[in-house]
């Protein structure tokens, strides 16, 4: 799987678990008993006889707008549909579509339908403009050590002005991500599960922005995080870099 080649070491394995889970479930959903669920590289039979009303997808289906939407099943059993174009934003769903495993309902077992609705809303908004390669190029937070001064693609010498936000999505994102913290965390977890890099980035940078310049007590209060440390443990912890905790 190409995911293991990810140079940043980010989630090299996780999507395979989720992928396998989805595949195993999709295979199980297909009523064809003859299909032995082979976990190594199971491709469910293309015509599930007693499955949903979806038509058989074409092999290279992901770009076809007229293809039927995918159906995600939330943890509370509610079904949420997502257009194929929007589903491309999720690496996990993209792989399912490429392998033609996306016909039947796709389980999203840890995600509540309200959260799934939000995630789908984000993907539908960004989907039309999504370019997987550009997205990959724009992120490189972990250059190899020692820090090299090699010019990267993103540091191209500035000559002409390029609008960084041609579709006005930044403002929409800002409104979208103003959620209460509990929901924000749920959206981040869902984006992580479905492997939607852009939404995950949006969520994590929002959390990071809320943390900057704040003391630990303030951060705990904002995010409603329980402090499991005893006062002695916490004092010990703060000793090492005491300067960062002073006023």
């Amino acid at each position, binding site marked *: 799987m190409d995911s293991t080649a990810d140079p940043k070491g980010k989630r090299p394995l*996780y999507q395979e678990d989720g992928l396998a889970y989805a595949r195993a479930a999709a295979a199980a959903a297909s009523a064809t008993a003859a299909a032995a669920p082979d976990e190594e590289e199971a491709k469910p039979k293309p015509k599930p006889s007693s499955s949903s009303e979806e038509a058989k997808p074409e092999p290279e289906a992901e770009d076809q707008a007229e293809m039927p939407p995918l159906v995600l099943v939330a943890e509370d059993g509610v079904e949420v549909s997502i257009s194929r174009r929007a589903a491309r934003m999720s690496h996990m769903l993209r792989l399912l579509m490429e392998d033609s495993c996306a016909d039947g309902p796709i389980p999203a077992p840890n995600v509540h339908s309200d959260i799934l609705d939000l995630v789908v809303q984000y993907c539908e908004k960004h989907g039309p403009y999504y370019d997987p390669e550009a997205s990959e190029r724009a992120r490189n*937070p972990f250059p190899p050590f020692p820090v090299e001064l090699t010019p990267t693609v993103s540091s191209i010498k500035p000559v002409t002005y390029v609008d960084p936000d041609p579709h006005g999505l930044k403002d929409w994102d800002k409104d979208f991500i103003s959620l209460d913290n*509990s929901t924000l965390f749920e959206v981040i977890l869902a984006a992580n599960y479905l492997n939607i890099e852009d939404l995950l980035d949006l969520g994590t940078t929002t959390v990071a922005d809320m*943390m900057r*310049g704040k003391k630990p007590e303030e*951060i705990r209060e904002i995010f409603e995080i329980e402090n499991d440390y005893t006062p002695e443990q916490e004092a010990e912890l703060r000793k090492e870099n005491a300067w960062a905790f002073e006023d």
Partner: protein
Amino acid sequence: MELCSVASIMSLGSLAIQRTHLCSLVFRVLPKLLGFTPNSLKKLCKDVHPPQSETIVGTSPDLTQDILMDIFATLEIPDLIRAGAICPSWHSAYTSLQSLELYKLSQTPCLLYTSESAGDSSAYLYSLSEKRSYRLTLPDPPIRTRCLIGSSHGWLVAVDERSEMHLVNPITCEQIALPSVITIEQVKPIFNDYGFLHKYELSWHTGMRAGYNSPSIFDLDKLRDELHYKAFVFPDTSTGTYMVVLIHNPKRQLSFARVGDNKWTWLPPHDLYEDCTYKDGMLYAVTATGELHAFDFSSGPVVTVEMILQMRNVYDCGYMYVVQAPWGDLLLIWRLCEDHDLEPEPGASVFWNTTKYKIYEFDITRSKLKEIDCLHDHVLFLGHNQSLCLSAEEYPSLKANHVYFTDDNVFWTLRLKNNHRDMGILNLDDNSKEEVVSQIFSNFPAPIWITPDLRKMNVASQVD
């Protein structure tokens, strides 16, 4: 890694209760499994038992370790340290990030300065992103008894009262001794009758000419007023070591050493160097006469040097810097101090202020030099630190097309220790200047830019 079914995920989860920092699979699978029940439980609890106002009941779902690491990876070091103290799970993400060296490497530079009232071992770190200062305690010898001659990749190069050099990381308090000053070509130790080192002899010869004066004798703490000029620390990927380059007198020659060496290696014959930068085995150094020299460290045991540029415009009232631009060219920068008075009327004081910068872009492969008058979205940090050219997009707290500069004219920083410092932020659009931080602080050692770094060098020749 083979694909797992749900059943095997469950059994793997129960096996992997022990946390291993480097096992990213555990980070993802285990919290996910544990996250099922407590999550729904917490939601239930919230409805049945309203949280008390005194204690904070965790109602937000737990974020997984890799998500936390994603969040932390964008933080400046002070925020990162504070994030690690929130709760055990956040602390675990912080230590993983640190041990795997995945935290944000593009830290915004800070200003390091000292203050008489804070004591001799304290230094302040002014954060440009938070606009506040932190007070740090540095290892002995006390920082206010030392001269700062360099700052690269989070390391200060400090010269103590025996004129010996050390690398000091003010964040980690790691300190590493550099080869003794007596191994520099022009320096000889002088021992007293009891066999103890008590003075140094400095010969005035350079690579080009024999010293026309006879050697001079200096007290242990006075040699540094004469000899040391500027120092740089460069990580060398090919050898996995750190190289330290020293510009020293007489006449600003070059010597270098790798961290762990026991002596400095002289690089004759040229002199009058002002600044240098290093990449891929090549050291580029500029001189006060507008020359750019390239030293080849990768071509074998002997270092070769060649002059690759002679600039036509050379400025008297100024000094030069060289820095790698992120887009691959070298930037050659003249710092001009047209506003100065070195022979004032009686009662008036001497002063020397930077008025503007002249910036040239040099394409090494094509040997083309071009003056530029705008840095567009980039920022320069100049001074006694290793010169930096940063992209303003990566550093939102910095102002594009500005030069952040500190005083690094040795005449001022060493000879006139109590003078006001020529430092500030210069806007290249109109050459207007503003202060970095308006606070009374000590002028010696002179304030210096530093990019905080949590990494340890872990070299054998460490001393406390």
